[in-house]
């Protein structure tokens, strides 16, 4: 009985705190994405600028480790029985990638463009070898070009 009560409390706390944190995080992501709207990050390797106008090239990178809450982990494990898309993991990965991209742009300073952007994800932490996704790291890196 106590076990069940404990479990339900965990789920309730996870749901409330997790939903609030996610909404807050998305609001901050949207705000910062608007701020960096003039700094495009592209996967192309070359740009149209003539070589003598490019002043400097520099490696920039950013990373974020995000984990999901107890409630979402529970719904995802339910979803595993029937199959189909797992929405809760989608938002987890989306948040991690966008946060990593934003941090990369923050590192780029007053550059004009970031070329050859690559995004990688990896699971780290104690749950890495188990089936469940514990937490996830996203890293984005590219070359920031400063143009006259």
């Amino acid at each position, binding site marked *: 009985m106590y076990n069940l009560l404990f479990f339900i409390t965990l789920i309730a706390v996870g749901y409330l705190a997790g939903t609030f944190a996610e909404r807050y995080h998305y609001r901050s992501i949207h705000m910062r994405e608007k701020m960096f709207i003039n700094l495009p990050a592209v996967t192309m390797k070359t740009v149209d600028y003539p070589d003598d106008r490019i002043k400097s090239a520099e490696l920039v990178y950013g*990373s974020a480790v995000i984990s*999901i809450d*107890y409630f979402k982990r529970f719904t995802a494990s339910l979803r595993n029985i029937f199959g189909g898309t797992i929405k809760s993991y989608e938002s987890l990965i989306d948040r991690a990638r966008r946060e990593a991209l934003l941090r990369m742009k923050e590192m780029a300073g007053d550059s004009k463009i970031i*070329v050859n952007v*690559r995004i990688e994800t990896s699971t780290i*932490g104690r749950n890495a070898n188990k089936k469940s996704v514990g937490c996830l790291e996203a890293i984005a890196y590219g070359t920031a*070009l400063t143009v006259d």
Partner: protein
Amino acid sequence: MIITNIETVPGKNIVEHFGLVSGSTIRAKHVGRDIMASLKNLVGGELKGYTHLLQESRQQALDRMVDQARQLGANAIVNVRFSTSSVAQGAAELYSYGTAVRIE
């Protein structure tokens, strides 16, 4: 030392290749951070301790790569890639590699 992840350094000419240089580091976090992270796992969100740790280790991997390139006499590294793998429980390996070149 100029580091890029494209094949060239724009505006400069590559005059000499030195081959592959790489740097890696394996880090584990201390127990306090582990406990904090497992608590944070309950409510979700960013694990700041882990993020900080990985950024620090990635910087170290880069530094080691730069040291190696400097010993070869290079002044730039092109086509740099990163990779991450979890080796053991609670430990992560950060690896970075690229081609050391001399530019003019």
